[in-house]
């Protein structure tokens, strides 16, 4: 790709797997797998054949005719990118004939290219420029004539000239510089899978086209794969146009979703020029989405608070103070609360956005310094049922596969997840597999975009009624057991057979048949039976799921049902199969691993486990509580009740993200000391007494653990604007409360994690530097880490089948609230939007919309774009309607990215039976036409404005 400034070796064509083939290139013997191109074989031998249209991210098309070679015994000059190697082949890449041909080709290219290299944004970073040099082009003999780059010709306006398309906020398309190599078109198809680009016209009229008037109005999802693929300045980042080319790069990890893409942060001085997905990144292999690649401007946003602030009451304006003053203020208040209301009256919320090391220290603060186990994290409100359900059935609280596993999947089951929006890079990888013929089963109330994958093969949509996951999954199990589709050999070898026979008898009950449950779930019985047969008999079956599984009153039961399905079909323990929770946040896996839950020490060991507690007591030199602490929702309940008084919240906006906003607000308002550590004055900060400025992932060292248990390094690329990394502030607070922590670098925290947590025993920063990343468990038993778990046996010994009876949620529709609301995420925004709303991503999604079926809209007199009031028994809010058949009649859907909408005013305090994970995905609501924002929204806006007042600094 654009690798002149910061060289990344591009091998020309993708790697192949095959038997070794030996050939000779320019006299050097080289051995490569069968199917490899001559170009790649030459690159393996260290010889770069000139090329323009080839890239090792894309399948070759042999279009540019620059990579011609001579092969002994073969006529003509074949393109090396499309010619596969054969045994004994003798290749010459540089002959008199080839030199002439290449120079002729380059002369033609340059005859239709503006020679404005010095002022071109890609100057010094342009493959066309490089190739002109490589082939020794010294002269262009063609006289001026028809071209694409001159705005005006001898006869006036040049009809072949097209203006730049600057509609996308992050990159510019300049048709004048296009050489029609089709790399952008192929990247959009092969890498991203969106098929938004094509080549319009033929020959001289060929143009890259979105099929619409602009990139912004097209199907383009702004992933940037085309920009990365472009060899010239035709598609280029606006940041490069504004700043210039970068001069060095630092490998780091994205801080958005749980895919955990590795990036090169390309820098000039301490200015970040662009983020380029790292080709060696094991999760993303050189691809990214619009958030990771482009939406990092929030780090420099003017809204960032860079100084500590305190106030005595939440009705006061903020006072800017020194860090010392803020830390003592917080420490004194917390200690006073404990003295007056007991040791258990305060707690912490660790962040799933911060690093493992930071999270480890925050839970350590609670356990070792506060002296209680009142620690929780936002995994409570997303994947806590995954932790519980998989620990019960498999013995470990994590997904079973790596993302590469999807390349071997034959049947992908996607349940309650919307990967194209929430996990876009994984979605691109899955779409690639679907185009190769893998089958797709989607279990979701909405018709998600994955079902619209171009060139998809067979796919089934089980559009269930929200809240009936367990009934649908048990019905799938019913079909598998009653039709004898289970894998008896696997079950006998790997699971407890008696438990399976019990489960078999349970599932075989006619009450669980698809026919019996159809009225409840609305899934046609025949479709469900087909899906069960395809999953059980279609080869490697992999289940991918998201919060549509966990955020229900039966979230944990649903996870168990998923584990049951994987076990009974033998889909565990090898590539292509498994149970794969798609984690929402960059480090939600890590925050769980690091002991953020109130009942579990790091490594998922219960606080009542004397051995585990002993390890930490010895390491920390204090006695630890053996009683489970409070979960987030319990903390808020206890706060309203007056027993819980102080909370240290690192990097989480519970007011906007947690359900039943009024209840959260009441809990926060009842506390005497709320410490918010964040980048911005978020919604929760309106109820805070101490504000500590957070740092971004660009400003600190550490690690994130992604959804595949991969520990990815995060590296500091610039100094923290606020002066401290988050872990340093936690250490200051701990020490102000009497601890004696002396960490000078996060690597020392990782050493403590490794010493106390068996799954991390062999993890060091040095190892991460050498290998790039590693998947836990990584210890003496698995020194190279563990891409796939439960290979020879389940972590708990025998896999455990558990009965999964459907129990209806208390949240029911009725005459007052006849519709079911379910919530989710959209591609360009991220969760509460604190980051993405402060970037140009708002060009795509400036507000939350309510999706409603045309039938439900019509009977209520609602038109597309109208303001509507959305009400539940918890509260009401107003937003605009989007009338669409994507949701079924009776179901409405919205996102929760914008604080002005406050979708969580409407969600209720129902929760999962085992973990208290809130039931975001099912709320009974009514929708009615409205004139605009509700009273709550207006009051809230005024209150937030007042809560954000900052006193001018004293002169």
């Amino acid at each position, binding site marked *: 790709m654009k690798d002149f400034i910061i060289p990344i070796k591009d091998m020309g064509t993708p790697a192949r797997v095959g038997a070794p083939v030996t050939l000779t290139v320019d006299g050097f013997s080289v051995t490569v797998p069968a199917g490899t191109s001559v170009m790649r074989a030459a690159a393996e031998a260290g010889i770069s054949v000139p090329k323009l249209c080839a890239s090792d991210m894309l399948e070759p098309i042999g279009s540019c005719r620059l990579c011609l070679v001579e092969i002994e015994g073969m006529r003509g000059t074949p393109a090396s990118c499309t010619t596969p190697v054969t045994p004994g082949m003798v290749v010459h890449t540089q002959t008199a004939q080839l030199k002439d041909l290449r120079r002729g080709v380059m002369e033609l290219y340059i005859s239709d290219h503006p020679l404005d290299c010095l002022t071109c944004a890609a100057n010094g970073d342009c493959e066309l420029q490089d190739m002109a040099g490589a082939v020794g082009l010294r002269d262009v003999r063609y006289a001026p004539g028809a071209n694409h780059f001159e705005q005006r010709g001898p006869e006036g306006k040049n009809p072949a000239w097209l203006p730049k398309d600057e509609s996308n906020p992050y990159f510019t398309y300049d048709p004048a510089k296009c050489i029609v190599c089709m790399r952008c078109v192929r990247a959009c198809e092969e890498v991203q899978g969106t098929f938004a680009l094509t080549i319009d016209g033929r020959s001289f009229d060929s143009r890259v086209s979105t099929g619409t008037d602009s990139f912004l109005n097209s199907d383009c999802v702004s992933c940037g794969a085309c920009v990365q693929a472009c060899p010239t300045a035709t598609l280029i980042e606006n940041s490069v146009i504004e700043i210039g080319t970068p001069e060095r790069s630092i490998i780091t990890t994205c801080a958005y979703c749980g895919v955990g893409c590795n990036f090169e942060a390309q820098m000039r001085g301490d200015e970040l020029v662009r983020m380029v997905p790292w080709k060696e990144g094991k999760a993303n292999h050189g691809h990214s989405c619009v958030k990771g690649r482009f939406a990092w401007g929030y780090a420099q946003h003017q809204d960032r608070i860079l100084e500590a602030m305190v106030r005595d009451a939440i009705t006061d304006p903020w006072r800017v103070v020194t860090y010392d003053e803020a830390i003592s203020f917080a420490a004194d208040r917390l*200690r006073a609360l*404990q*003295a007056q209301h*007991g*040791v*258990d009256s305060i707690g912490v919320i660790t962040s799933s956005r911060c690093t493992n090391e930071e999270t480890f220290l925050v839970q350590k603060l609670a356990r070792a310094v506060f*002296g209680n*186990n*009142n620690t929780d994290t936002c995994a409570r409100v997303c994947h806590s049922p995954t932790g519980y359900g998989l620990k019960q059935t498999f013995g470990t609280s994590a997904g079973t596969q790596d993302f590469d596993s999807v390349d071997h999947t034959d049947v992908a089951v996607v349940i309650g997840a919307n990967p194209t929006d929430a996990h876009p890079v994984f979605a691109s990888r899955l779409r690639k597999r679907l185009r190769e013929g893998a089958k797709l089963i989607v279990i979701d109330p909405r018709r998600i975009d994955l079902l619209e994958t171009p060139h998809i093969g067979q796919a089934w949509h089980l559009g269930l009624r929200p809240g009936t996951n367990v009934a649908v999954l048990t019905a799938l199990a019913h079909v598998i057991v009653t039709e004898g589709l289970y894998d008896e050999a696997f079950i006998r070898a790997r699971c407890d057979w008696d438990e399976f026979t*019990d489960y078999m008898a*349970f599932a075989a009950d006619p009450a669980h048949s698809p026919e019996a449950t159809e009225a409840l779930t609305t899934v046609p019985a025949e479709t469900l039976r087909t899906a069960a047969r395809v999953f059980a008999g279609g080869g490697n079956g992999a289940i991918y799921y998201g919060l549509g599984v966990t955020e229900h*009153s039966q979230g*944990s*039961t649903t996870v168990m049902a998923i584990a049951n399905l994987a076990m009974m079909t033998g889909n565990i323990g090898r590539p292509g199969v498994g149970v794969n929770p798609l984690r929402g946040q960059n480090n939600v896996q890590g925050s769980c691993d690091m002991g953020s839950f*109130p*009942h579990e020490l790091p490594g998922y060991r*219960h606080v*009542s486990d004397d051995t585990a507690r002993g390890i930490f007591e010895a390491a920390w030199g204090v006695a630890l509580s053996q*009683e*489970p*602490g*409070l979960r987030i929702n*319990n903390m808020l*309940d*206890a706060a*309203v*009740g007056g*027993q819980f008084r102080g909370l240290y919240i690192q990097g989480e906006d519970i007011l906007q993200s947690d359900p039943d906003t009024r209840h959260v607000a009441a809990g926060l308002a009842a506390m005497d000391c709320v410490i918010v550590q964040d980048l911005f004055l978020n919604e929760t900060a309106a109820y805070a007494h101490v504000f500590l400025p957070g740092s971004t992932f660009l400003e600190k060292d550490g690690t994130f653990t992604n959804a595949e248990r991969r520990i990815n390094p995060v590296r500091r690329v610039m100094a923290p604007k606020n002066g401290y990394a988050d872990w340093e502030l936690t250490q200051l607070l701990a020490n102000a409360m009497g601890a004696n922590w002396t960490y000078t670098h996060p690597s020392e925290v990782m050493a403590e994690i490794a010493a106390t947590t068996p799954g991390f025993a062999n993890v060091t920063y040095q190892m991460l530097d050498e290998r790039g990343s590693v998947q836990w468990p990584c210890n003496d038993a698995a020194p190279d880490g563990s891409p796939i778990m439960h290979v020879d046996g389940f972590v708990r010994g025998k896999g455990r089948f*558990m*009965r999964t*009876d459907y*129990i209806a949620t*208390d949240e029911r529709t009725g005459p007052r609230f006849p519709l079911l609301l379910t919530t989710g995420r959209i591609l360009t925004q991220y969760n509460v939007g604190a980051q993405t709303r402060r970037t140009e991503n708002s060009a795509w999604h400036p507000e939350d919309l309510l999706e409603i079926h045309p039938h439900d809209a019509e009977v209520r007199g609602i038109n597309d774009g109208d303001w509507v009031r959305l009400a539940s028994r918890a509260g009401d809010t107003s937003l605009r309607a989007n009338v669409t058949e994507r949701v079924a009649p009776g179901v409405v859907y919205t996102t929760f990215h914008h604080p002005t909408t406050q979708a969580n005013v409407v969600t209720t*305090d129902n*929760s999962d*039976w*085992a*973990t*208290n994970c809130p039931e975001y995905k099912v709320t009974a609501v009514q929708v009615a036409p409205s004139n605009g924002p509700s009273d709550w929204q207006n009051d809230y806006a005024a209150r937030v404005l007042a809560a954000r007042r900052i006193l001018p600094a004293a002169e």
Partner: protein
Amino acid sequence: MSADKLIRMANQIAAFFATQPGEDAAQSVASHINDNWAPPMRGALLDQIAQGAAGLQPLVIAAAPAIRKPKPPLPQA
């Protein structure tokens, strides 16, 4: 701690374990609560049971003897 909410949560736990085979369901309910509920929550639930257990499922009541009683909280040293 709101009693209504604790009762609802305890009943949800009981509803799950009531569906499981073989084991002592009351013991499972008690273990789940012991493992996951902070002492004040357990105390408040036991208080509800002591006060007549209105609204609680029989399985929760059956689990009560095995639910660990919280120790009185110690003031900060």
